[in-house]
């Protein structure tokens, strides 16, 4: 298709990944804190081994993690590791690698993010388009506007309110967790429904929390598109409102929203991670929470890096799909 654009975007992706990994490499190292010592000092307080032992253990671990090598060599090793998808070893769950841990929890996060993003994108854009459309009935505009009120609210807060009203007061849905305590994960429909029940509240929180953003941007886009000459000319042609809405208004207004989707991915994933923590769902978010709590730094850095690379990749993919929808870019 367009080779120059393609290579330019790939280069950009590499730059983003490089910047993210460099930041995650250097920030902890310019900090006066020694993560390994921090981690084992905590164990020493609870587990009761002597300060001398602590020094030995710290030295041993530092060697094992290559922390005693010159900084530049560490940086080289680190970048080489990233290229091989090697994000190091967990400090807390020792023999397991960070990648193993990420693979265990990734499906949960992907499932949640994917479904809620698609749902909120469709719902939000549909409502936003209708809200800006002069012929929509007032009640519909009011519904759309009421979603706007959720726009500034982080999904995690909606999650807390949902837990309170629906989980705690009405006892309709569980307060958290991936599946009911005591059930054994299997392939049965019953287990699947149980999981779905547990995903419902976090899912609703995420959809409600992100719909408003789409409504606002789509409404703004819609108003702009309606001022475009081609929409006015379509009316002059005597086209019915349905055709104008579908072919002239929606099709054009949706295009920038798709670019917006790529840009919003970071926020969506961030929100999902925090929501997972509140609902104790076994995804990357809960893993991050427990890593923060137990000072498992290699896992913290690993998750951050993994998500950043993932998002940058998705952004580039969206950008490559975009020309299929917009003939202006296709022909350039």
């Amino acid at each position, binding site marked *: 298709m367009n080779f120059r654009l393609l290579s330019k975007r790939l280069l950009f992706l590499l730059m983003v990944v490089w910047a993210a990994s460099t930041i995650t490499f250097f920030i902890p190292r310019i900090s006066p804190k020694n993560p390994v010592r921090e981690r084992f000092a905590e164990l020493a307080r609870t587990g009761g081994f002597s300060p001398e032992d602590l020094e030995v253990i710290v030295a041993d671990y530092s060697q094992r993690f290559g922390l005693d090598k010159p900084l530049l060599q560490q940086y080289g090793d680190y970048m080489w590791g990233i290229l091989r998808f090697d994000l190091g070893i967990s400090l807390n769950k020792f023999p397991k690698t960070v990648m193993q841990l990420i693979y265990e929890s990734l499906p949960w996060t992907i499932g949640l993010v994917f479904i809620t993003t698609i749902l909120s994108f469709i719902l939000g854009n549909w409502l936003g388009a209708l809200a800006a459309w002069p012929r929509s009935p007032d009640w519909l505009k009011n519904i759309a506007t009421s979603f706007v009120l959720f726009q500034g609210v982080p999904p995690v807060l909606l999650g807390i309110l949902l837990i309170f009203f629906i989980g705690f007061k009405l006892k309709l849905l569980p307060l958290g967790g991936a599946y009911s305590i005591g059930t054994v994960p299997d392939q049965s429909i019953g287990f699947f429904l149980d999981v779905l029940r547990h995903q419902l509240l976090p899912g609703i929180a995420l959809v409600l929390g992100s719909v408003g953003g789409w409504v606002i941007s789509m409404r703004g886009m819609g108003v702009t598109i309606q001022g475009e000459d081609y929409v*006015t*000319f379509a009316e002059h*042609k005597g086209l019915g409102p349905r*055709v104008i809405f579908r*072919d002239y208004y929606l*099709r*054009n207004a949706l295009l920038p929203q798709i670019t917006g989707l790529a840009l919003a991915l970071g926020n969506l994933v961030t929100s999902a991670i925090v929501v997972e923590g509140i609902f104790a769902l076994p995804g990357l978010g809960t893993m991050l929470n427990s890593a923060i709590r137990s000072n498992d730094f290699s896992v913290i850095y690993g998750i951050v890096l993994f998500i950043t690379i993932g998002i940058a990749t998705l952004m580039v993919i969206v950008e490559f799909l975009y020309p299929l929808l917009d003939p*202006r870019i296709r022909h350039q």
Partner: protein
Amino acid sequence: MKPVLKVVDLEVSYYTDAGRAKALDRVNLELNAGEKIGLVGESGSGKSTMALAMMRMIKPPGRIEHGQVIVDGNDLTSLSDEQMLKARLSQIAYIPQGAMNSLNPVTRIGAQMIDAIKAHSPNMPKDKMRARSLKALESVELKPEVFRMYAHELSGGMKQRVCIAIGILLEPKVIIADEPTSALDVVTQRQVMETINKVQAEIGAAVILIGHDMGLMAQSMDKVAVMYAGRLVEVSTVKEMFTAPKHPYSQALIRSLPKLDVRGVFQGIPGLAPSLLRLPSGCAFHPRCQEAMDKCKTLRPENQVLASGSRVTCHLYGEGA
């Protein structure tokens, strides 16, 4: 001859925070089939409002206060919204200043022609619609390949032709062309005007050409109508308008045109166009008029037909003069 277009006492207001602005003030106009009239006036004088009002496309905060637009015996203002949709393009068509942005950027030109036909005759067979679209493209001298192209692949002049082709798809009785040449270079302007003249002759429609360019009007129009502050102050034949304009504003307008034989300073029109929010009482032009009389300040002049055939709205003429 029965006029194909009759605009009767058309009045349009815009409601703003600062009050009501009269954008069109009791405008009357008649046009015969095949007749071409140019509509001129300063920016904001109501030319485009008039075009939109005739298409019944005035949107809030604007409103058609009263008046009639009669095309071929049908009063458009009395039609239902549904019927008006059908009347657009088939009875009265509007050709926008299309060089910029009047075509949908994401669908093919052909699709944009076919959906226009489909909106008026949904049961027409596909190939017939296609044939009709290709014929329209041909009459504006575009290649049939344009049918499968996108707007961004066309030049400004080609886009304008496409807009004209869409305008004549259903052979309307009246065509309104709103500054169709203003964004084009001089050579293309001329070609587009020739195209308009050619298709107009083919389908015998009446044409209203909106614009600033008096030269263009003189070349290809039959009559010229002059608007000032939402009022039609004079309607005359081109010859009459350029040799003996009647209304003091038209006279000033003609005087302000550059002439080849008299070199020197351009003559402007002193003063500024009034705000539509606070029009001067009486004749709206009186503060700028060199021949203003006392009654011009209080009494609004009526429209009258002079012996020369010109219609003029001024106290200098008629029984009171």
